[in-house]
């Protein structure tokens, strides 16, 4: 698994629950080191060990931890760069939803060896969509729910999101877009601020 993904999980746990919690979780996961390096590649099993150790240490369901991770990826100030890259996906939440299918290509533009789940969007009409997500990790759909919820806030859209289980090895997320301009949303300028 790419270090960037592992590092994101580490930063989520550290920024949300503190250094001591991260130390305890990395210890329980048996990492044998303190920090993932974002540009190195790690054994896939390690990611699973960290997620399981986090759920155990925090005494929270795995799904909740993963959903919070998804929200963190978009909403934490430390990851503003990632939020901006996702916002390039479109000028509205609907545009963004469609751009999820391009995420693997967009990811590989920057890091050719980055694994990004495959997303397939099905439009069911009347603002209802199904998003099928390939299982990069078990529970990837919960990360997606958290991420979409934060992105909807970012765009100011009102959505109802639900994890719909697993179908043929892909996790299903149902998206019901009730209002694409429900709230103000956060600003997005094409040019990087202060660059």
């Amino acid at each position, binding site marked *: 698994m790419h270090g960037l993904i592992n590092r994101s999980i580490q930063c989520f746990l550290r920024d949300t629950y503190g250094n001591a919690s991260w130390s305890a979780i990395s210890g329980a996961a048996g990492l044998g080191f303190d920090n993932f390096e*974002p540009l190195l590649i790690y054994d896939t099993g390690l990611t699973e060990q960290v997620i399981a150790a986090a759920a155990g240490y925090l005494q929270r369901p795995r799904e909740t931890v993963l959903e919070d991770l998804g929200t963190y990826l978009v909403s934490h100030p430390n990851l503003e*760069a990632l939020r901006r890259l996702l916002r*390039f996906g479109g000028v509205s939440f609907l545009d963004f939803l469609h751009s999820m299918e391009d995420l693997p290509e967009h990811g590989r533009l920057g890091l050719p060896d980055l694994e990004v789940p495959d997303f397939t969007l099905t439009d069911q009409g009347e603002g209802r969509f199904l998003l099928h997500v390939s299982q990069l990790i078990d529970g990837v759909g919960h990360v997606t729910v958290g991420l979409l919820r934060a992105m909807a806030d970012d765009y100011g859209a009102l959505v109802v999101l639900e994890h719909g289980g697993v179908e043929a090895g892909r996790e299903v997320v149902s998206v019901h877009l009730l209002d694409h301009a429900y709230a103000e949303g956060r600003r997005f300028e*094409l040019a990087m601020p202060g660059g």
Partner: protein
Amino acid sequence: MHIGLTAGGKINSIGPTLAKLIEGPSPIGVAFLKVFAVRRPAGITSMEDLRARAGVRLHVDLRGKGDTFRGLAVPTADGGLLLNLSFGIRLIDAVRQHSLTDADFAATDMAVEMLYLVEVKQAVMTELRRLNLRLQGAKATAEEQALTDTLTGLRNRRALDVALPALIGQGLAFGLMHIDLDYFKQVNDTMGHAAGDLVLREVAKALVEETRTSDIVARVGGDEFVVLLPGLSDPARLQQIARRIIDRLMQPIDFDGRACRISASIGLTISTLYDPPDGERMLNDADAALYASKRAGRGQAQFHATKGDDLLSA
């Protein structure tokens, strides 16, 4: 971004993004070359010049603003020209300066993808820079550890092997002191290794305190130390420092309420005795002087004997 020109060179249509950049009153009906200047190819001052350059890559400036474009002019059926312009490499500045959005670019334009790529590149570069800083820090730490004796914090044998030739290379006279602890083995044997380790740490502390910060103190063996004293070649002064060190080390060291008693024997030599100075020989001579001290009853310092000369009287 397009501009349509009449056969007479006046603007008769302009794309919304270009109109936004011009900012002032509508340029429709104004001569193109009054609003824009063609920088390359040089010498385009009339509609005829421009027409003659149809199909050639143009570099166009917006007069009175910093904006530059590259583009192409193609003839139209009515004798006019249609210009297609783009920002080229100045895209990012233009987007920032004019607060352009997705909607300001044609659906076919790759401008937004280019902006995306620039940010991706920036994000990856930032991570690479951080990684390099961490690696640099780790390397510095590793080097520091590799030259340091972990028990005492003094330099180790490797550090001495680097420092001694470096000192000789500087051409500065220096004194060399080889110190071996007396009765250390007894402390280790009767009071245990923990006491031995404590003694070694106390000895290290004493050596650092009894020498100057510019001196180099190294632990080169179990209970052997070497001190290099740059700029010190006076035998009497060196003998005095050696004596002070021995006196200090003869003070009992407390270990859990029990007194560890040691002493030290020292062999001394000075770089000016050698022409040219040779690190290996100096260490051997100091070692020989050290064993002369041991044989003479321990707890003392002797100089390397140079062919019958008495250094102290010289």
